[in-house]
Structures are given as structure tokens and as C-alpha cells.
């Protein structure tokens, strides 16, 4: 429990450091949201100055940070210049969409990787193993962007799946079953791209960990007792290979908000990706900082989750060294 508390405090310190750094870096970069307005002859310089003062941009940087911090504590995460509303109200619907997409994709990618990785580790050098190796290498060298474009082209040409958006225009009028179906159809394309992008790496980790654990003496011993193959793989070898995979799962959890950014932009998924890109281009700094902060929080949470899982699953970690 003390360990957990210590980790939470560490996490909070890292988050504050991340917020200071992103705040500083974004303010140090040349240009700002209102810079473009100054070029517009129809807007008086006084108006721009008034706007800057309204958002507190004329104050010293530490004061700006303090004001922003106060707004974070209120749960607003600052104010968006472009949308003229608190960042949180902009962010949450998009965070929800991004989380939905990434959770579905990562769960599928992990299920595929664990099943295929374990299965092919048990058949080293056989054609099934080679096929998986070739497929994963091929997917590994294809950039996500190309995969997304190729699938988009396929969807547009064949009209098998809707291209772009999250739901159909008449979504509100659909029955509950049709709503799920419609959402599933819209999810298919972006989720497939993320699955194909993340699967090869996960597959390779699972395969190498399991094939290593198959040579462990206690797994061999179980073979000596005549254990069935599936039992050997999923009850002995896979749990023995779990530790590095649990750490990888923690890292995966950390990417729940960031894994799909590019895919969302290309395939028009209304998540954080398009908004982040737009905010970076228009220097809507508080939106960018909020997204960075959320991603950092997820990475920290992912690490914590992995540690707790390891602590729970491996009795050797729970034992204090003599």
C-alpha cells in the first residue's frame, strides 16, 4: 500500500513536470494564436490586445501557468482560443471516441498476438510459424499511413464499409441493435489499421517470450508428466512468459489515447487526432497541453497497472529479498 502511494506521488510529480515543460516549450516557440489576427487590416490592434488580455496572454509566464493550474484544478484544463470554451468540454467527447477506438483495437491486437504468438512458438520452423513470421514482418515494414490509405481506398471502391465518421447521419433514429451495428461498421476501418499496425510488434514479443519459456526446466518437467499440448502452452508456458508481456501491456495501455492519432486524421474518426492537429497548427496551446498531459497520465497509469499486475501475479516479486 505504501508502495502504491509512493508511485501515485511520483506520478503526480512527473505530471506537474510534464505540464511545466509543455507549457514552457509551447510558449517559447515563435508565434501565437492571435498572431494571424494582427495581419488582418480589418481588426484593430487594440482589439487583438484586448483579446490577449482577456485570455491572460499579456501576463508573465509564471502567472499564466498559475492561472492555468487553477483552471486544471477546477477541471477545465484552460480555455480554448479557437472554440472559446473550456478545454475539458471540448476534450471529453473526443477522448471517449478515441478510447473506444483504441480499446477495441488493442484488445483485438492483443488477443490475436497472444493466440498466434503462443501457437507459432510451439511450432518453430513449421510452415504456420513461417507464415506468421512473414506476415508480421511485412506488416511491420508497411507504414500505418499507407495501410490506412489502402483500406480507405478499398472501402470507397467496394462500399463494404463506411469511410469516415463514427456514426451514420440517421444514427439517432436507429434501434439499439442497429446502432451497435452501425458503430461497429464505422469502427471496422480505423480499428483494422491500428490492429494491423500494433499486432506485429506484440506478436513478436509474445512469440519470443513463449518460445523461451518452453525451454524452462519446469515446463520441461510438466512435459515429462505427459501434460497435454494446449495445457502446456496456455497453463505453463504462457504464464511463465507473462512478466515481460505484462510490462508491454502497461506500455500498450499508455498508448490508448495516442495510438490512433494519425489514423483518426486520415480516416476521419472524430477523436483527439483531428482536434490535436488543428490545435497545433492554430497554436491553440491549452488544448495541446491538455492532450499531452492526458497522454502522460495514461502512460504513468499504464506503468502502475503493469507493476500492480506483476506484483499480483508473481509471488517472487512479493517476497522481500533476505
Amino acid at each position: 500500500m505504501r508502495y502504491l502511494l509512493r508511485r501515485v506521488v511520483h506520478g503526480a510529480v512527473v505530471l506537474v513536470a510534464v505540464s511545466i515543460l509543455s507549457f514552457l516549450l509551447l510558449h517559447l516557440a515563435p508565434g501565437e494564436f492571435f498572431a494571424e489576427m494582427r495581419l488582418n487590416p480589418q481588426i484593430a490592434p487594440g482589439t487583438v490586445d484586448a483579446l490577449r488580455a482577456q485570455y491572460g496572454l499579456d501576463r508573465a509566464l509564471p502567472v499564466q501557468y498559475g492561472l492555468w493550474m487553477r483552471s486544471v484544478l477546477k477541471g477545465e484544463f484552460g480555455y480554448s482560443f479557437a472554440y472559446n470554451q473550456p478545454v475539458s468540454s471540448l476534450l471529453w467527447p473526443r477522448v471517449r471516441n478515441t478510447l473506444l477506438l483504441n480499446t477495441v483495437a488493442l484488445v483485438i491486437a492483443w488477443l490475436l498476438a497472444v493466440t498466434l504468438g503462443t501457437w507459432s512458438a510451439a511450432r518453430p520452423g513449421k510452415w504456420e510459424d513461417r507464415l506468421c513470421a512473414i506476415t508480421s514482418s511485412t506488416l511491420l515494414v508497411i507504414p500505418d499511413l499507407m495501410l490506412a490509405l489502402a483500406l480507405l481506398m478499398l472501402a470507397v471502391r467496394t462500399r463494404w464499409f463506411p469511410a469516415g465518421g463514427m456514426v451514420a447521419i440517421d444514427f439517432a433514429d436507429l434501434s439499439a441493435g442497429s446502432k451497435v451495428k452501425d458503430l461497429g461498421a464505422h469502427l471496422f476501418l480505423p480499428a483494422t489499421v491500428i490492429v494491423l499496425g500494433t499486432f506485429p510488434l506484440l506478436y513478436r514479443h509474445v512469440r519470443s517470450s513463449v518460445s523461451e519459456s518452453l525451454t524452462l526446466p519446469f515446463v520441461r518437467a510438466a512435459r515429462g508428466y505427459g501434460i497435454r499440448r494446449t495445457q502446456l502452452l496456455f497453463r505453463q508456458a504462457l504464464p511463465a512468459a507473462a512478466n515481460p508481456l505484462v510490462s508491454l501491456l502497461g506500455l500498450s495501455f499508455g498508448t490508448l489515447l495516442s495510438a490512433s492519432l494519425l489514423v483518426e486524421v486520415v480516416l476521419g474518426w472524430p477523436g483527439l487526432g483531428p482536434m490535436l492537429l488543428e490545435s497545433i497548427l492554430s497554436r491553440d496551446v491549452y488544448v495541446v497541453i491538455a492532450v499531452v498531459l492526458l497522454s502522460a497520465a495514461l502512460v504513468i497509469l499504464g506503468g502502475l497497472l503493469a507493476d500492480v499486475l506483476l506484483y499480483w501475479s508473481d509471488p517472487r516479486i512479493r517476497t522481500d529479498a533476505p
Partner: protein
Amino acid sequence: MEEPLLQVRELTKTYTQHRFLSHKRREIPALRGVTLSIHRGCTLALVGESGSGKSALARCVARLEDATTGQIWFGDTDLTTLNSAQLKPFRCRIQLLLQDSAAAMNPNFLAWEVVAEPLGIQQRGTPGQQKVKALEMMDQVGLPKTLAERHPHELSGGQRQRLAIARAVVLDPEFLVLDEPFVGLDVSVQAQIGNLLLTIQRERSLTYLLIAHDLALAISLSDEIAVIHSGTIIENATPSEILQTPRQSYTTQLVAAACGPGVRRAGTGGAL
């Protein structure tokens, strides 16, 4: 005379290593035509230096690895011709005590679960009966019940070795392959484990193939000694013959090393 329980005939085992960035393979012969036989209730000690092929032979006899050529007769069955389903009944009759007992136990299991594991795999009895039997076996090898709920890494080396022995005999096997059972144990614990192995052998009329690099220990525990060198059995004799009239110079070196200064007494059979 009675037929031997185990007969190994002309057994070879070759490992192949693929060369980096090449289709060429390097062949590493571990066993080059090993022939030996062990009678029921007896102990044959296989002695040799590291890398001589002792453990490879142990794994082949326990059918954890396939031999390249040759036969392994257990009673009137050639084990090398059986597939994994046909091997299952023999898995109970032949057990292997692995070299490193710490690594040979699932770290997630409790001590009693380690012993009960073979019963579960062989589907002997209900889980409750398996636990009772496991605790009984732990008692027989001299492990107190208080250790049953501990994990293997929380036990001492000697306790772990006793646990490994309990697991090896829980299925009531006829034949036990003991792969270096004394590695990493201090001298007094070695003696305790040696005595435990002799007691269990007597009580259950077990047959042992003892793999050891320590000739002195092998002599005190076995009825017959086979000296293996570079994958070949170079000498096969009783402990007293090995001690008094070794025929090969390699055996003479082993005897000299075993009886050298600072080494325990080397008796001929019996308890340590």
C-alpha cells in the same frame, strides 16, 4: 537371469546448429552409440565431466527429447517408437529429477501444488485427494506440513530437493532418472538427500539412473558405474572395480580426483 528393466541400445543424439546467415548446419554429437542396461531395483551411476552427454542421455531416456538413432527398451517396449499419446502411460512409470530444482518448479505454485501437479496432469483423483496425497508425500520425504503453503523460492536448497523428490515419486514410478541431484547442495545436505534416495529406493523397489559428475557420491550410491566421455561409454563396472582396477586412463583420473585430498571417503555402496 532377470531381464533388465531398462536397456539402451546404440543410442545417438546429435544437435544441429544453424550457421548465421547461411543454410549450412553444424552437427554437435552429444551421444555416440551409448549402450547400457539397468536391472530392477538397482542403481546405475553415469559419471563423466560436463559436456560428456550425461544430461542428454537423461533427457532421451525420460523421452523429453527424441534420440537421433538407437533404441530405449523399457521392459518389452521400445520407447523410441511411441508417439506422445502412447507414451502417456509410461510417463508415470519413468520420472526425471531435473538438475536445478529451483528452476524445475513453477514459481507460481505452492509447495504442495508442485507435488500435486503430476497427479493433476495424469488426472489421478479429485483435487482434494491430490492435495492429501501431496501432503502425504511431503511428509514421507521429511518436509513438515508448515512448508506446504510456501512457494518454492521460499524454501532452502535441501528442502527444495526433497520437494523435487516428492514430486518425482508421487506417481509411484518404477524408474527414476536422477540428473545431478546433489548440485548446489552443501556436503551435509548431500548426505541427507543421498540417504533419502536410498530409503525411498528400498521402500518402493525403485530403479535409478543416477547422473553425476562426482565419482565419490556415485560410488556410495550405486551398484554399477558407467563412465561416459565425449558421448561414449568408455567403462562399465562395479564401484569396487572402478576404484581398484580402472581400465581407462580417464577413469583413473576421475578416481584420483575423487580420492584426492580434502575429498570425503569413497565407500562401496550403502548409506552415506
